[in-house]
């Protein structure tokens, strides 16, 4: 993937060179609404507005656009806002008629200006489960964490709080710069009661975030729950799609053993968010603060990989290694999550190529657009073209794959094994799951985690007695093998 930068009309509008007239028009209108001298309070915006207008005047006219395009080099798009580095498991692919796998480690690194180093403004809603099961230390810890979080907000951040059980109540409507004492008092008055209906909480939360929705904010919903929601999971996932369309990220924290981690992963994954697991109430505060810190350290959000593969190539698996490890939903565009200010957004992709015919010189694995939003920029939307290419040859020299890729994959392999053991248990394939858990226990030992190996062995005993996979062990294994992928502080 080449990187380079040219100030051009497309980059000003944040659209790809291939943008349709409709995309150009709506990009212009969105920018104009925010930057027009009549509406903007910031005098600097006028100059940016004029630049955008200049771009639009050319690109909105077919003849002028065609003439302008002729002046541009072929590969104009990659902007300087993000550095992209791709590491491949093989530099030259062997030609063969049988399937082969290729792995790509994609690193996206921020290139912040001084302006970007400031915290981006937040538009955040806390959606808190206050069902009966939250009584006692769970709600106390959530209250304490929420209070800390509220205190760390900046005056320009929007905050709202929703409490839900069977119904949802807006405890603090979306506002900014309000009296901290009042917010804290309202949080401390939260009481428990009723069941868990996540859909109610999500809808109310989306409504609050929606009031001040803007690409200049990090638009975020943080869901905290300890229960399984019944009958409204499908509808909740639709809210996830709705959030993804509007570039609102949903993250989740599950407490205890009752909640459905697969559901929460699916919901948050749709929006580029993540879930974490608090085994004990004591974990709540640390995990919520960690998630919150991740949100405030955002450089770019809503990073999307809009890709196409040629007929013989399939993208089989995509996994975010950092920040917040998690499997990525493969629906295009793939929601990659956030690029933090500091460490990179790191994605591991597995491609399968059915055949590379003899005589092939070069093969495209995938190409398309990389789209992202940088909230601190005047024009947050940015698009970069990308293509993942490899050369091919007959019987190329065998070379060891890059160490960094092997290391990433070896950390990932533990997570994948527990993932597959779970799938096999659910499919009723106990024998296969048992064999896999046995291997996992041994691999965990050689990775220096005898505690987790022990958990697996206990679980194996239960499974041999005909019991099902315990909820606590399941979650512990999943979230612990996940955290092995990207240990805190690397």
């Amino acid at each position, binding site marked *: 993937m080449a990187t380079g930068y040219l100030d051009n009309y497309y980059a000003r509008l944040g659209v790809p060179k291939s943008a349709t007239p409709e995309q150009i028009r709506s990009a212009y209108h969105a920018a104009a609404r925010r930057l027009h001298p009549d509406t903007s309070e910031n005098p600097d915006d006028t100059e940016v507005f004029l630049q955008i207008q200049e771009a639009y005047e050319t690109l909105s006219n077919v003849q002028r656009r065609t003439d302008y395009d002729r002046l541009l080099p072929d590969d104009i798009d990659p902007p300087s806002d993000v550095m992209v580095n791709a590491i491949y498991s093989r530099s030259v692919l062997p030609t063969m008629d049988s399937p082969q796998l290729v*792995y790509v480690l994609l690193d996206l690194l921020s290139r912040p200006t001084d302006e970007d180093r400031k915290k981006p403004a937040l538009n955040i809603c806390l959606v808190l489960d206050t069902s009966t099961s939250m009584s006692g230390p769970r709600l106390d810890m959530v209250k304490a964490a929420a209070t800390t979080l509220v205190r760390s907000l900046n005056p320009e951040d929007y905050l709202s709080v929703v409490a839900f059980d069977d119904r949802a109540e807006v405890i603090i409507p979306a506002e900014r710069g309000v009296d901290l004492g009042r917010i804290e008092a309202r949080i401390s008055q939260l009481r428990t009661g009723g069941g868990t209906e996540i859909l109610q909480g999500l809808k109310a939360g989306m409504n609050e975030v929606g009031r001040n929705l803007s690409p200049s904010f990090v638009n975020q919903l943080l869901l905290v729950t300890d229960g399984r929601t019944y009958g409204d999971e499908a509808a909740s996932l639709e809210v996830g799609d709705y959030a993804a369309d509007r570039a609102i990220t949903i993250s989740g924290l599950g407490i205890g053993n009752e909640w459905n981690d697969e559901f929460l992963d699916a919901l948050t994954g749709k929006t580029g968010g993540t879930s974490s697991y608090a085994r004990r109430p004591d974990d709540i505060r640390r995990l919520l603060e960690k998630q919150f810190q991740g949100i405030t350290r955002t450089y770019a959000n809503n990073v999307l990989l809009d890709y196409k593969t040629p007929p013989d190539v399939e993208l089989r698996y995509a996994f975010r290694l950092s920040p917040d490890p998690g499997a990525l939903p493969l629906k295009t565009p793939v929601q990659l999550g956030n690029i933090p200010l500091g460490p990179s957004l790191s994605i591991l992709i597995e491609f399968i190529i059915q055949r590379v015919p003899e005589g092939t010189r070069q093969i495209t694995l995938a190409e398309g657009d990389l789209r992202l939003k940088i909230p601190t920029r005047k024009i947050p939307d940015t698009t970069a073209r990308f293509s993942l290419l490899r050369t091919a040859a007959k019987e190329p020299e065998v070379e060891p*794959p890059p160490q960094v890729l092997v290391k990433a994959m070896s950390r990932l392999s533990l997570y994948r*094994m527990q993932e597959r053991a779970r799938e096999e248990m659910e499919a009723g394939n106990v024998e296969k799951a048992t064999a896999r858990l046995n291997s*996992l226990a041994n691999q965990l*030992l050689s990775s*220096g985690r005898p505690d987790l190996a022990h958990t697996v062995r206990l679980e194996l005993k239960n499974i041999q007695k005909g019991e099902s996979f315990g909820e606590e062990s399941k979650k512990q294994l999943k979230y612990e093998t996940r955290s092995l992928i990207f240990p805190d502080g690397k």
Partner: protein
Amino acid sequence: MTVQCPNCAHENFDGALFCAECGTKLISEDGLSTAAIRATDTSKGDGGEQAAPIPPPPVQTSDAFVSLHVVRTGQILPLVGREEFTIGRVSEGQSILPDVDLTPFEAYSQGVSRLHATIRVAVDQIMLIDLGSSNGTRLNNDRLQPHREYELRHGDMLSLGRLKLQALVRQD
């Protein structure tokens, strides 16, 4: 074309780096982290492929259920306090430490990996598992498949790389 896993024999797609079934690494490139043993060294050292004579186990003085007898120095390392013991050597900057550190016995030059093998003490049997070490583990001269369990009995000879240990099990 496929790549067969040395551990579980699963046929993986060409280009795979780790076995899709059991997670075993399918490529070897970590010879750098552990001193690699050349075949000639082994043959002149202690007999290589020929079955080395198994010495009579020394009398045990510790009350540990399982101990390891370092044949070359005569030292006995009791395994106490847990059910599983990882055996290896400590090196600088290493975050994962083995329960039994063989560094004092020239582990590095003998080809012992940092996490070489594990011994698991269960109620009725003792298991030995090679943790995918660079130079392999032998049990009474038979090379172990990595990540697979083998039963360990009193008097058995273990070679971690070239370092010889004898398993001592308390005879009640």
